[in-house]
């Protein structure tokens, strides 16, 4: 069953066409990785899909919900409940403790009872290996720990799809590993995920479908093998630069 369908999405900033006629589908339980050089439009695509940017045309349809591109403000609020997003820079709330960061939205937005929200949040923190950090504040944690808190925060709202916007770009290689492990564990639990990433090996290992974007279009897509063995010139050039 497809949870998300993107049809012919377009986006420009002024004269610059950032996304040209993008179509894709995300199946339930699928891990989709979006890769590509800087400026290829992959982050913009993710920001359009999560409605942080308004697409200029096309359809973004979450299972059974109205088209996000043309949705009213009230509809958008509904659509937002469908998915979660993990940011590159975490965007944790610095004035709230780790636990509060995770349990606040379930309480205030989903109107869960405090005890219930707290128990669920502690459960998630435990899963992320951060239960003893519950009362710490974000700045007291390492980047990897902060990113794990932000994953817990997104999961607390039980999204059907979890988006990641370059979740390891702000981390050093050592910390990158711990985030990749968390994502792998989620994949094993059949969490549906869309990951914009620069980690080629990771994309290869964890994704079951990969999209390679270049200059606002999907240049290559398919299984990891199909994409990494593709003879598309831009793809080869991109991989060549990474190896160099």
């Amino acid at each position, binding site marked *: 069953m497809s949870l998300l369908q993107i049809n012919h999405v377009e986006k420009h900033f002024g004269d610059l066409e950032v996304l040209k006629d993008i179509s894709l589908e995300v199946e339930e339980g699928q891990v989709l990785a979006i890769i590509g050089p800087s400026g290829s439009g992959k982050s913009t695509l993710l920001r359009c899909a999560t409605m942080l940017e308004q697409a200029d045309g096309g359809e973004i349809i979450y299972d059974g919900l109205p088209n996000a591109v043309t949705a009213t403000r009230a509809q958008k609020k509904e659509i937002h409940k469908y998915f979660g997003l993990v940011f590159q820079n975490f965007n944790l*709330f*610095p004035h709230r403790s780790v636990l509060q960061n995770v349990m606040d939205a379930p309480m205030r937005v989903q109107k869960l009872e405090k005890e219930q929200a707290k128990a669920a949040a502690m459960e998630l923190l435990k899963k992320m290996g951060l239960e003893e950090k519950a009362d710490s504040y974000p700045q007291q944690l390492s980047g990897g720990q902060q990113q794990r808190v932000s994953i817990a925060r997104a999961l607390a709202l039980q999204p059907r799809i979890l988006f990641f916007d370059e979740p390891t770009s702000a981390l050093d290689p050592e910390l990158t590993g711990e985030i990749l492990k968390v994502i792998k564990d989620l994949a094993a639990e059949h969490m549906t995920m869309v990951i914009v990433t620069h980690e080629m090996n990771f994309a290869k290992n964890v994704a079951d479908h990969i999209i390679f974007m270049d200059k606002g279009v999907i240049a290559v897509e398919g299984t990891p093998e199909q994409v990494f063995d593709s003879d598309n010139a831009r793809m080869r050039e991109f991989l060549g630069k990474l190896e160099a």
Partner: protein
Amino acid sequence: MDIATMLELLGKGALVSLEIFFVTMVGSLILGLLLCLVRMSKFVVFRLLAKFYISVMRGTPLMLQLFVVYFGPYYIFNVNISPSYKLMAVFIGFVLNYAAYFAEIYRAGIESIPIGQYEAAKLLGYGRVQTFFYIIMPQVVKRIIPPVTNETITLVKDTSLAFTLAVAEMFTIAKQIAAADRKVTAFVLAGIMYYVFNLLVAGAFAKLEKKLSYYR
């Protein structure tokens, strides 16, 4: 006049000064926030009106504004003003003036919050009002403490401007005593009292700043 009598008279004046201070603080911090929201409104006309208001209030002397508020009703609208309106005029003038400064301080604070905080809140489903009060404002309060401290200290001293409308606050009384006494003792005492009060103000804000230093 002996010092004890002087202190008693100055003390009475100090109570009026304190009253001006507290009314202005509460009134202008609230009005300033509203003004700031108008200043940041998406409607250009509102934005420009707020900008113009702020520029006039900051660009003309507070003393002049006090005169306008006090004498304006008579000269402009031909309304008779009673002497009891004096203190009210001081309150109104001070609140209108300080709100302009606080509005700009709030604006700087709000604009300094990274856009990512709004985006995270939006993705988590917070409404606009929830985002403002639970996520943005607490962080703004922390960031604006230093400039608010500055303004507050200035306000303590500015309360003495009420003497231009002959409101019996501390400076007005010090002036009367000094004139009758032909000595500057009352001024020295008043100066010390302003200074001590400002020490307390600075101390209180430092404490608040420390309390909020648990995060960056």
